[in-house]
């Protein structure tokens, strides 16, 4: 070694020293202990994979049935083999019918639009409120903050009927019957979201960082938007996904509060079609229920796949939860 390197301050890694191990990032698959170490019996991998295949079949059977039967006529849904296609192939014809008013019960794509509106505004609003409240509960101690937080958690125990029925009764008094706000505003209250965001802030937004910003004279709002929010993104995406799914799939609230079918979300519309299917004169309602069900789940599955990266890590929240 030359004198210049010795004279240099600071440690110099020698060539024989192996590079330091990469810092572990929680949850990654690359992290697993090699399965050889477990001393498994021969055939375990095959048996376990077979169990996975069986459960995957159980999981996918209804969805495969839905896809196949969305291409059939009503007669074929009842008469042909359920797990294969039958002619005539009428997917396009069924799809066009989703744009029409079926037997006066309502237009599917109108319901689809409503559902998107409720899920985006309601679910998005719920996430924004949960982010603010979760940050407030996690990083501030104000009068009664503990008691308030426990009150929010306790609200999980309240049955939906005990909230929805009185809401319906009060909507009549404040002219919110058959108003989209009657659906959107209650959807913005997500105690689970607040709970998850609080847990997520605790683990991902360091207190010291906030204090440092305060010493630098940054305002609380600025600290929240500039500093905390970017660190909260994985948790935020998870909570957003959960909230959107909750609103998208909500059945009880819209079932109770809406009397006009133009305001229905998909769940209530499909429920109405199902109710009428048995005694409907319209010969085409069963294919519409099947295809309507398929079109209902496609956007959510797409959303899941797109946001996969986030909820995979974000759902960790549930495990830290104590």
């Amino acid at each position, binding site marked *: 070694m030359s004198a210049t390197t010795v004279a240099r301050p600071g440690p110099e890694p020698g060539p024989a020293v192996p590079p330091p191990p990469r810092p572990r990032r929680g949850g990654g698959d690359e992290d697993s202990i090699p399965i050889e170490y477990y001393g498994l019996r021969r055939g375990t991998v095959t048996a376990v994979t077979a169990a996975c295949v069986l459960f995957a079949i159980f999981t996918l059977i209804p969805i495969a049935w839905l896809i196949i039967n969305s291409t059939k006529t009503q007669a074929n849904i009842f008469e042909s083999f359920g797990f294969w296609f039958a002619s005539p192939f009428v997917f396009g014809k069924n799809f066009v019918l989703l744009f029409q008013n079926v037997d006066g019960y309502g237009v599917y794509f109108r319901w689809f639009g409503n559902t998107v509106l409720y899920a985006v505004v309601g679910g998005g609003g719920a996430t924004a409120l949960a982010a603010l409240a979760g940050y407030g509960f996690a990083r501030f101690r*104000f009068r009664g903050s503990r008691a308030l937080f426990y009150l929010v958690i306790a*609200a999980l125990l309240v049955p939906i*009927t005990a909230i929805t029925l009185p809401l319906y009764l009060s909507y009549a008094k404040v002219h919110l019957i058959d108003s989209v706000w009657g659906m959107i505003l209650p959807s913005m*209250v997500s105690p689970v979201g607040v709970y998850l965001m609080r847990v997520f802030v605790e683990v991902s937004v360091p207190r010291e960082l906030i204090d440092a910003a*305060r010493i630098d004279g940054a305002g609380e709002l600025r600290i929240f938007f500039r500093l905390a929010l970017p660190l909260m993104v994985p948790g935020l995406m998870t909570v957003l996904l959960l909230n959107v799914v909750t609103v998208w799939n909500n059945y009880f609230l819209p079932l109770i509060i809406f009397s006009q079918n133009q305001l229905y979300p998909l769940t209530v519309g499909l429920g109405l079609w199902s109710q009428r299917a048995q005694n409907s004169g319209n010969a085409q309602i069963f294919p519409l229920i099947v295809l309507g069900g398929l079109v209902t789940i496609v956007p959510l599955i797409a959303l899941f796949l797109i946001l996969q990266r986030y909820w995979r890590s974000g759902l960790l929240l549930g495990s830290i939860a104590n």
Partner: protein
Amino acid sequence: MNGTVTGAPRRPPPLRSMLVQSTWSRRRDRAGFWFVAPFLTLFVVLLLAPLGYAVYTSLYTTRIIGGTTFTGAANYTQTLQSGEFWSGVIRVIIFAAIQIPVMLAIAFFFATIFDLGVAKYGTLFRTIFFVPFAVPAVVGAVMWSFLLEPQFGPFVHLANALGFGGTDYFSSNLILPTIIVIVIWEWTGYNMVILYTALRSVPRDVIEAAILDDTPLWKIILKVKLPMVRPAVVLLVFINTIGALQLFTEPLILQYFQTQAISVNFTPTLYIYNTAIAGGQYNLAAAAAVILGVVIVIISVSSLFVRRRRSEV
């Protein structure tokens, strides 16, 4: 750290600056309240106030002739004496007692497999199992109603082919197991993902130490990993119990397709729904909703304590 910053004041700070400090932090804490305030406003107006209104309504009775009068506990007495309401309550308790342990066992089994990495294509299976979470209960119930339909349903054809002719999945004996299967189909993946992420966060050195001690794998799973993910299990038991006791959408939709299969007031939530919407007896329904709330609090909170005691033994 920087030397100039850590050079702390040598004298205790004067009283005045301490006061300034405390008002400053008090103002800061008040800022915390403003972060919570928007949520809290909606929480009070759209959750607590309706709940209070439900309790209030339950104490009155509205008649077509005579209007609304205060009747005290009358609605509660009537609900408590209703055989239909209680048979529904007992039914959802049985439902929860079977469905939740079975589902959590399946979910834990697969979560463990994916955590250990012993199955091939683990990531693919994990994604597949999670898919039903994206399916609304309405659509799930519709699909299963078709699949299990006694006359033309493909599952009945399958049962016939295997020699179990004439199985009626909607008969009074099988309707509860059928709903259990549907709900397991809907929720196992979600529970599995949460257990999986919990298992991933178990420190690796703990497992490595157990392996070096020649601990058999089943013991590592049940005696080392399971206790470490107990918080997640407790949370799932709690959430699933609350949901199961409010079972509503699946039986209602099955009712549309199989009218004879399910009694009108099959579950307490159906009882409340029918009493309020079909019967127009909002006061009675409100009393039933409050009683259901009390049942939920008792069962879900006591389930937490049972778990806690058992795992401490």
